C-alpha cells in the first residue's frame, strides 16, 4: 500500500468513526445509498480486472516494447497511443519499460503517447464510465484524452 492509499484510509477511517459517533443513523443511511451505487458498479469492476489480465496475456510488456521502439515514428506514435488506451499496466512496470527504450535511443514521442493514454484513456473501463456518466460524457472524455495525449507527445518531442 503506498503512502497515499494509507493516508486515504487514515483520513476516511477517522472521519467515519467521528461520523458514527455523531449520527449513527445518518451515517448508515448514507452507506445504504453508497452501497446501492457501488453494487451497480461491482460486477463491472470485477469484469474489468479479469479483462486486464486477459489483455496482458495477449499484449505482454515485451510486445509493447517493440511497438514503442518502431522505426516509423508517426506510425509508432499512433500504435503506442492505441496500445496505451487498451492496456492498463502498473506504473512500476510502465516507467522502467519506457525508460529502457528511451535509453536505447528510441524517439520519446511514442513513449509519451503511450504513457499518457495508459492512464487517461480507458478502453476496459469505458463501459462502466458510460453506465455511470452517460455515453456522451464517456466518448467525449476518452476521445479528447486520446487526442490530447498525442498532442502532448508531439510537443514533448519538439521541446525535449
Amino acid at each position: 500500500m503506498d503512502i497515499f492509499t494509507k493516508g486515504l484510509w487514515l483520513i476516511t477511517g477517522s472521519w467515519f468513526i467521528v461520523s458514527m459517533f455523531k449520527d449513527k443513523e445518518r451515517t448508515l443511511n448514507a452507506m445504504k445509498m453508497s452501497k446501492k451505487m457501488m453494487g451497480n458498479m461491482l460486477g463491472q469492476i470485477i469484469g474489468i480486472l479479469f479483462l486486464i489480465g486477459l489483455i496482458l496475456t495477449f499484449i505482454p510488456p515485451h510486445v509493447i516494447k517493440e511497438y514503442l521502439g518502431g522505426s516509423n515514428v508517426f506510425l509508432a506514435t499512433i500504435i503506442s497511443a492505441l496500445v496505451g488506451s487498451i492496456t492498463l499496466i502498473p506504473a512500476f512496470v510502465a516507467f522502467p519499460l519506457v525508460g529502457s527504450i528511451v535509453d536505447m535511443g528510441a524517439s520519446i514521442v511514442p513513449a509519451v503517447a503511450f504513457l499518457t493514454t495508459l492512464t487517461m484513456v480507458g478502453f476496459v473501463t469505458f463501459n462502466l464510465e458510460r453506465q455511470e456518466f452517460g455515453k456522451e460524457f464517456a466518448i467525449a472524455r476518452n476521445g479528447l484524452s486520446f487526442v490530447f495525449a498525442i498532442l502532448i507527445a508531439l510537443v514533448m518531442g519538439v521541446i525535449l
Partner: protein
Amino acid sequence: MMEKFKKNKFLVFVVLIYLVLFITSTEKAVLSVKNSGYYIKEMLMIMPVVFLLTSLIEAWVPKKVIMENLGDESGLKGPLISILFGSVSAGPIYAAFPVCKTLLKKGASISNIVVILSAWAVIKVPMLANEAKFLSPKFMATRWILTTISILIMGYIISKVVKREDIPMEGEEIEEDTILIKEEYCIGCGICEKLASEYFRVENKKAIVINNNIGNGVENKVQKAKEKCPANAIQIGTVKRTKEKHSAKTIKEV
C-alpha cells in the same frame, strides 16, 4: 436470474471469454487469472475506503459547499481544488467513478468532474517520483505541466459538449413528470410545502407528495422546491432520463 445476467452483461462476457480460452488454451487462461491478481489486490485495498468516502460525502458535505467550491460558479477555485483533489487521491480511475458521481449529484460542475477524474487517473505523486527516476526529472516536469493544461482544456470543452441531462442520475428510475421524495433524506423542513403547497405536505416530520401530476404551468414551482430542498431529497422524473427504461423499473406514486 435473467435480470441479473442483463445487469452484468459485461461480467458474463468476460467469463465467457475465459471459458473459451480455458478449453482452447488452458495455459493462457491460467496466466490471465494470474495477471489479474495484482489488480484484484489493488481493488481490495482501495474500494472499501472509496465506499466509506462516498458515504461520508453523501452524509455530511452539504450541497451548498460543493456548489460553491466545485460548481458552475466556483470560478478559478473549482479547477484548482479539482486538480489537487485528483492528485492526492489514490487508486485507479474506476475508484474515482463513485466519488465523482456523488460530487456531481451534489452540484459539482461537469468541467470540474472531468478535471478530478483525469487528474485522479494521470497525476499521481508516487507515479511522478517513479517517472523522474526512470526517465528524468525534466521529462516528468514537462509532461506534468502539459498534462495539467490539457486536463483543464478538456474540462472546458466537455462542459460545453455534454449537458447535465446526458448524465444518468438516480432520477432515471422515476416516471416522467412525477415527483419522488427520498424519504431517508427528507428532514421535514417544510420549504417544499411553502413553495408548492399544491404538491407537498409535511406529515409526521416527513414531506409527502399529495399531487404527483406536474402540469406545464406549475412545473416551475416544483422545480424551485426541488432546488431549494436543503437535503436534496426531491427528484423529478424527466422524459429524457426515462427513455430507455422499461415500465417495471418505474417507481409507483409515493
